[in-house]
């Protein structure tokens, strides 16, 4: 009788000790690393694109002449492309369908839409849509930039 009590007590102690919460120490994760240089270049290019797009819109062919407007339009298209490329390179893995409607996804969608329209406007847009697409692209890019500041 006494033996069985002692045995049960010892077994109980083992169970209690075994069940006690212990720290779960795990090996370092293989984290996705953000490149600070690519990220900074993307930010700088985004602002430059926006400034260039607004200058293009303000300095239209009637005000500044066709050559100036065209030069600014091409510059904006190139800057928009570079912004998108650097954005993808810097933030690959941070956006995608798996993240749902989060702030980064919305920023990337607006930026991609704005940047694409900025390239479409001078390259392939028909004359009757050129102005509207350029303005829409600038608006989308502007919202994308402000969105990132706010969110």
């Amino acid at each position, binding site marked *: 009788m006494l033996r069985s009590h002692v045995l049960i007590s010892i077994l109980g102690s083992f169970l209690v000790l075994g069940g006690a919460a212990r720290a779960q120490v795990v090996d370092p994760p293989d984290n996705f690393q953000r*490149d600070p240089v690519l990220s900074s270049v993307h930010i700088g290019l985004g602002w430059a694109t926006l400034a260039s797009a607004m200058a293009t819109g303000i300095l239209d062919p009637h005000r500044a002449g066709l050559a100036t407007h065209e030069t600014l339009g091409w510059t904006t298209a190139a800057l928009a492309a570079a912004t998108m490329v650097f954005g993808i390179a810097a933030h690959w893995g941070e956006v995608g369908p798996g993240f749902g409607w989060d702030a980064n996804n919305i920023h990337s969608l607006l930026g991609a839409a704005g940047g694409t329209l900025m390239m479409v406007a001078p390259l392939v847009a028909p004359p009757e849509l050129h102005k509207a697409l350029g303005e829409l692209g600038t608006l989308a890019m502007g919202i994308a930039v402000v969105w990132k500041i706010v969110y």
Partner: protein
Amino acid sequence: MKTRIFMGLMFAWAAIGGLQAESPSKTVAVLYYGNTPVNSDTLHFLDAQARAAGYQIFPTQDPRQIQPEKIRAVVLLNTGLDAGIDRRLAGFIGTWEDKQRLVLVSLKKGSAAPKVEVLPASVETLGVDAVAAASRWDGRGLFGGGSDLFKMHLEWSKQVLAYVGRLP
């Protein structure tokens, strides 16, 4: 008269010096590993919150840069894991004598539940006070109200800074 003024000034200088020597440091070291998006967002956020509370943070990935006599506390940023403590942080906790001055912040990978868990020092947390929350970040929002995730990050950072403030 001149001697009195001189003595008075000397006394005031000594008193101010004594007070400064006694006042605890306002620097909070933050030990983290990896330039990850979560760490980057967390450090920026914590920096702003700490400044508002009168502290300055010293972020580092090198534990050797943390000098116990120059800092008030060490925040250990445990990120990139869905559970458990990063072995490198566990190693640092093991080498630190005054566990009271350590705070473990676990931002769980893959979690988006806007909930803050406050975990008092226990075997489970390697003897240090801890908070746990989701790693997902959201901004303050256009009108400053903030999403649930923003409020969650605000909550754990307040808990951490309040703990740091209570340290002797």
